[in-house]
């Protein structure tokens, strides 16, 4: 490992910040810049494609921020080592210190960068768990499909349904399977999703209305009608109050 150059991916939305990192890395022997990402999304796709050893990851980026990027990248078989960079974020820095997560403060010093690269390693699951509490609600769900990461924007999700081990994530186009818990998602996005049934969360904005339907056993219950899909979602007896709340 030591005789091979360290492959590094830079992710920062500000051009001068990327330039500065490039200048600093040029002076650190044994490093090679694999690529540069301007957004969180690019950071994920380029990591996927280039498989760098280390990702230098800015925290504050538009759309998908650095903390969320790190979380999505955990779906890779061999995630890269991540070194976070931030200009100022007291909460994040405190959490990094506490959990021994590698980070750099901007403006970054050459020797600090060299040091961080030397000891950089992939995030441990426990570290990731701590970082998850720092970030705001995710902007995307990520799905690992054939070793690659697919990103599904949260605002395109119509409903999520639990089936055995997985959750089905339904968008207007297709279904995806993710390994998460419905309860956690309900807590993460209380504004966006509403619980219709023990096994189902639906996006409030995707519900067109409610209708009474006859079940197979002759039982009458409410179902939610959706704007973009023909299918209906059953509302459980316990959750019937939402029919009134959402103006069914």
């Amino acid at each position: 490992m030591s005789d091979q150059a360290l492959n590094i991916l830079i992710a920062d939305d500000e051009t001068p910040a990327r330039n500065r990192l490039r200048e600093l890395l040029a002076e650190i022997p044994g490093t090679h810049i694999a690529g540069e990402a301007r957004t969180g999304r690019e950071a994920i796709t380029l990591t996927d494609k280039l498989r760098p050893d280390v990702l230098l990851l800015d925290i504050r980026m538009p759309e998908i921020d650095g903390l969320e990027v790190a979380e999505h990248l955990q779906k890779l078989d061999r995630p890269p080592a991540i070194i976070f960079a931030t200009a100022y974020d007291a909460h994040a820095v405190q959490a990094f210190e506490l959990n021994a997560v590698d980070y750099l403060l901007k403006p970054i010093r050459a020797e600090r960068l060299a040091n961080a690269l030397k000891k950089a390693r992939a995030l441990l699951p426990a570290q990731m768990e701590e970082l998850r509490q720092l970030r705001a609600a995710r902007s995307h769900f990520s799905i690992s499909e054939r070793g690659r990461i697919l990103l599904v924007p949260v605002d395109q999700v119509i409903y999520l349904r639990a089936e055995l081990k997985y959750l089905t994530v339904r968008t207007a186009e297709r279904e995806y399977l993710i390994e998460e818990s419905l309860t956690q998602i309900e807590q993460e996005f209380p504004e966006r999703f509403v619980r219709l049934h023990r096994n189902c969360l639906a996006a409030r904005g995707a519900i067109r209305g409610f209708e009474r339907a006859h079940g197979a056993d002759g039982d009458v219950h409410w179902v939610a009608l959706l704007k973009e899909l023909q299918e209906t979602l059953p509302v459980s007896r316990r959750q019937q109050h939402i029919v009134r709340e959402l103006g069914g």
Partner: protein
Amino acid sequence: MASIKQNHLRIPVALPDFRNMGVQLRILVIVNLMAVLAAVVRADSLITAWPALLQLSAAVQPILLGALLALFILNSPLSRRPYRQGCLAVWLLVLLLTAGMQHFAGDLFGMDAPPSLGRSWFLSSMTVGMLLLYFNLRSRALSPAIAEARLQALQARIRPHFLFNSLNAVLSLIRSDPKRAETALEDMADLFRVLMADNRQLVPLQNELELCRQYLALEKLRLGERLALNWHLDNMPQDALIPPLVLQPLLENAVYHGIEPFLDGGEININIYRSRDQVHMVLTNPYRLEGDHHNGNKMALGNIRERLALHFDAEAQLMTKVAGNQYRVHIVIPYRQAAAS
């Protein structure tokens, strides 16, 4: 430490600004409340207090309105005199008005038995004394607030986030483009000079705008094409006075919440114009509902609102509005001219 000491500098007590609507309103309300009190004290029951109040009002209102008008006109010469002389002048003015009222009231309203001049003078002197005492106490009570406002201004302005990112941007320029790095550092120096100055005094709008330009030049360095600016300043009164650091923090908010979170950035509109006696400042920036960093924004807005109130009382307004995907801040302040330099 030196800067902290300055907060305890005594602010000399001065006459209130008689052209300020808030001050005028306070005078009107207090004098009329005193009239009500007097009428109720004099009458046997609450019902008979009403005609007593009417009679009293007929005598009080002309003096009150006359005094307000005279003070409005004489405001600037009065404010230039030392405090004691100013108070004396106000007192004499009211005595004069009372005497005049007494003189003409007999003819105008045909009052049978006008009260003695000595009694009227005594009553109006007491009223003037109480009002002056009230404004004296009020300005003392608020003066620590002005010092406080300066401190608050310090806290509300310039996110550390901006400072460190800008330093980082300048560092990136030093090797490749030393000229631009120089300009950027000069802008930063100017910006921080203002930030660390004593910011209690009003400044010409032009100065504040210069500061905004320097600040935006630094942001432009980092954000490049993502930050688009649209200035509408054709009808801007350059000599209007505003509290320092009112526009700059608002622009900082606009960049932080309206430009940085977007991949393609966006446009900030700055529209400043004068309409009769008021200066309007309108800022708009792109807005997305799901931005969740609103606390910093609220703090800055609260701080600016407070400082506007300290300087202009009820005559300044700050309104915010979300219209579609635009966030709009609208500030209205009374138009006051800077002394020609």
